[in-house]
């Protein structure tokens, strides 16, 4: 009897009414079937061992980069479906395609997934795939920590994504402001999912920041001084340092909210003199640098793409570095512009308004540098270059509307209206997403060894960018006409309907662009256009001096760097033989050994998080013990490196045609 009651109670906790909607159940069934099919396929083809040894336990930055990329594309799909659901609801007045609760859950998941589980991993995919190759290193500074970062991100993403079928999704928006996110107004486990999944992924992000900062500062090839680093490496260095100072306040904000909800503290509650605005401050002390964490790597990508496809060295290298540094510095002094309405007074607001406007100056410098790089160059309109060209007008519009929002009195008018929604999609999509997609198309052959079909890529680009403008331009006008964000539905007769219809049509065109992109990837996989030269774009930086994909150890011979665009100089000066190795120069190479510790550690975090989410403290303790056990295992296990002997290196290099006779 007891067991029966207990089971019933458990079922009620795991499956509250909000997860039993027909569409969610249908998705659950679909996912279960897909899991069984994939599992059966792996069993039938006996690929579990391959999966474990080649991918799940790998510490190779190139493979970790690929896993990040795949995960990010899946999350882009998830977040995109959420976006289409939102737009479907808003296509007509008084529509009730979803209830208000579900609508809230969908926009919360959309924002959270897109920022933390799509944009961030996409950026880390590019970091992992390229940084060691660009600086002439064999791996990152801490390969095992790199794998830990990935698995923490992956389990964090899984945690957020299972919330909609087990226990209930979060519904307090991606910023999750108290007091609404507090237990009193938001009972159930959804908000706990949000807090714990971001916390776990955030720890991984901090580790990535540490890793790439140290990698770039300490692992560069001889001769590559800071002023000879490619701009993408500079952007990554500055992004990593931003992560270090931005993410701990997020950790604190999320942690304190969790203490409020799970352990009854009184930080951001309305009672007991808690102070919800403290959360908002902490969140945006993280949140504003975060938008630069998102966009700087995109700036870096464009600074690689433009010179390559204009066949010209980057214009104003020093100004590029200087403006990146200026933006990163200014980004810490702008957080209050997210809530001018707090009531901090005119002096404070003017300070933050001005500091925000100042950021337009270094950003403008970068815009002109890219344009001047193209000026007089021989431009090739490849897919990465097309994304760059679309980025310039899009980001300029986004930046200009950002200046409008930074004007304090104006902001009182359009704060939290669709004007704001249009603005930040304009900069985040037009900056980050265009940037990472440009980077994906640019470095794809380096990552996989075959190139993506350019004609299909152009179609995907055209649909996506066209859909983008159609979606978001009407939203500026909706904002002016008074439509506020997060409205689950709206009455007829306000003049909003036509604009909303256009916006929804645009969103579906973007969705079609994504579908074409996936088709592009699958088609190109089945009809591979092999990259045999390793340098399909006639590139300028060191990663193009390697075969595609690069061998496990990247460089058989560490290059000695003499100029900024080293590979380009080698080609111009006929020094390309410098990358080749010979029987006389070949040396054994030490590489880190694969280890199951990262995935075990992340799984332990996952178990502990489930325990905290549902308030099953025995399980939280179990997870904590697992974390300690995994760390102890990692510390005691002798993870000495493996040695690839010189003969094997020579053989691999010979197969790639990279041995001097």
């Amino acid at each position, binding site marked *: 009897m007891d067991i029966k009651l207990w089971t019933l109670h458990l079922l009620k906790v795991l499956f509250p009414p909000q997860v039993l909607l027909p569409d969610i159940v249908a998705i659950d069934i679909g996912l279960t079937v897909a899991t069984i099919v994939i599992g059966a396929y792996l069993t039938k083809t006996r690929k579990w061992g391959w999966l474990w040894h080649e991918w799940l336990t790998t510490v190779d930055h190139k493979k970790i980069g690929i896993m990040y990329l795949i995960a990010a594309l899946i999350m882009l799909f998830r977040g995109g479906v959420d976006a289409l659901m939102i737009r479907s609801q808003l296509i007509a007045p008084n529509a009730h395609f979803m209830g208000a609760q579900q609508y809230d859950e969908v926009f919360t998941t959309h924002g959270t997934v897109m920022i933390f589980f799509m944009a961030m991993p996409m950026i880390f995919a590019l970091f992992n795939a390229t940084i060691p190759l660009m600086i002439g290193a064999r791996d990152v500074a801490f390969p095992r*920590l790199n794998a830990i970062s990935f698995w923490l991100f992956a389990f964090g993403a899984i945690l957020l994504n299972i919330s909609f079928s087990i226990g209930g999704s979060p519904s307090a928006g991606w910023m999750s402001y108290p007091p609404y996110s507090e237990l009193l107004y938001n009972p159930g486990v959804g908000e706990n999912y949000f807090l714990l999944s971001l916390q776990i992924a955030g720890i991984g992000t901090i580790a990535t920041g540490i890793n790439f900062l*140290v990698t770039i500062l300490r692992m560069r090839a001889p001769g590559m001084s800071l002023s000879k680093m490619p701009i993408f490496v500079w952007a990554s260095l500055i992004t990593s340092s931003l992560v270090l100072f931005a993410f701990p306040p997020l950790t*604190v904000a999320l942690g304190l909210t969790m203490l409020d909800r799970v352990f009854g*503290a009184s930080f951001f509650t309305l009672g007991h003199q808690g*102070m919800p605005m403290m959360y908002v401050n902490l969140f945006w002390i993280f949140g504003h640098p975060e938008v630069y964490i998102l966009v700087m790597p995109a700036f870096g990508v464009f600074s690689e793409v433009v010179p390559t496809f204009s066949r010209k060295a980057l214009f104003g290298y020093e100004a590029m570095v200087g403006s990146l540094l200026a933006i990163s510095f200014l980004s810490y002094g702008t957080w209050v512009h997210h809530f001018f309405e707090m009531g901090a007074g005119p002096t404070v607001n003017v300070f933050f308004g001005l500091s925000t406007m100042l950021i337009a100056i270094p950003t403008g410098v970068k815009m002109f540098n890219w344009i001047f790089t193209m000026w007089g160059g021989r431009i090739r309109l490849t897919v990465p270059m097309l994304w760059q060209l679309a980025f310039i007008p899009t980001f300029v519009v986004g930046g200009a509307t950002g200046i409008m929002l930074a004007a304090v009195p104006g902001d009182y008018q359009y704060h939290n209206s669709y004007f704001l929604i249009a603005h930040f999609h304009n900069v985040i999509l037009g900056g980050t997403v265009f940037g990472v997609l440009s980077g994906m198309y640019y470095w794809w052959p380096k990552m996989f060894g075959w190139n993506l079909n350019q004609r299909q890529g152009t179609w995907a680009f055209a649909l996506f960018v066209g859909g983008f403008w159609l979606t978001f331009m009407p939203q500026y006008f909706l904002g002016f006409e008074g439509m506020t964000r997060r409205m689950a539905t709206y009455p007829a007769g306000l003049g909003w309907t036509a604009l909303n219809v256009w916006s929804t049509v645009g969103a579906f065109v973007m969705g079609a662009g994504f579908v074409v992109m996936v088709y592009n990837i699958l088609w190109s996989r089945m009809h591979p256009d092999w990259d045999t030269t390793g340098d399909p774009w006639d590139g300028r930086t060191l990663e193009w001096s390697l075969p595609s994909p690069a061998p496990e150890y990247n460089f058989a011979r560490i290059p000695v760097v003499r100029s900024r665009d080293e590979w380009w100089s080698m080609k111009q000066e006929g020094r390309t033989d410098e990358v080749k190795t010979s029987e006389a120069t070949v040396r054994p190479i030490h590489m880190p050994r694969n280890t199951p510790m990262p995935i075990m550690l992340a799984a332990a975090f996952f178990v502990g998080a489930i325990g905290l989410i549902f308030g099953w403290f025995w399980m939280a303790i179990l997870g904590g013990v697992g974390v300690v056990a995994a760390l102890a295992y990692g510390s*005691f296990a002798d993870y000495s490196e493996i040695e690839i002997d010189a003969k094997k290196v020579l053989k691999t290099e010979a197969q790639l045609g990279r041995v001097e006779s």
Partner: protein
Amino acid sequence: MSTTTTTTTLPPEFQDNLESIRIMGFWVFLTTDLVLFGSLFAVYVVFRSRVGLGPTPHQLFSMGPVLTETLILLTSSFTCSLSLYSARKNRVKGAISWLVVTLALGMSFVLLEIREFTTDVLNGHTWHQSAFLSGFFTLVGTHGSHVTVGIGWAIMLAIQLGMKGLTLTTRRKLYAFALYWHFLDIVWIFLFTVVYLSGIA
């Protein structure tokens, strides 16, 4: 990566390129921890006067136990340095013994802190009572849990020193641990000043 010996005065863990990179990584980690504590200090300072129906800092704190905790932690920082000093002199037994002394002092610090917290809670001053108490318990508790983690680390490190002796890796780990321990000491000095001294005054 081979060792790049430039000068013999550098300790072994700095002469090895990989180990010195790891030490740098640990420094960078400490900066993130510094920002974490900085955020918690900010929360505490904002919440200090928001006592609600609960006690004020002045009513809650008493100097005696806190002063003892401070002395214990400062002493443990000294013994931690002695452990590192022994390692530099290649005396593995000395390194282990001083490490054990350090973790024993750390444990007594944590026990005293737990006693302080338990007393407060038994008097009805849980962190539910006010924003001030939430901020206080979290800031001091975060430091305390860092010390606890450090104790676990020291235990494992002592075992590894016993098993493997003074290798490059164990030397580097001991050095990183010492950095961590001194860092916690510095945080405590700020904590002692901002929380306790200015609360009692």
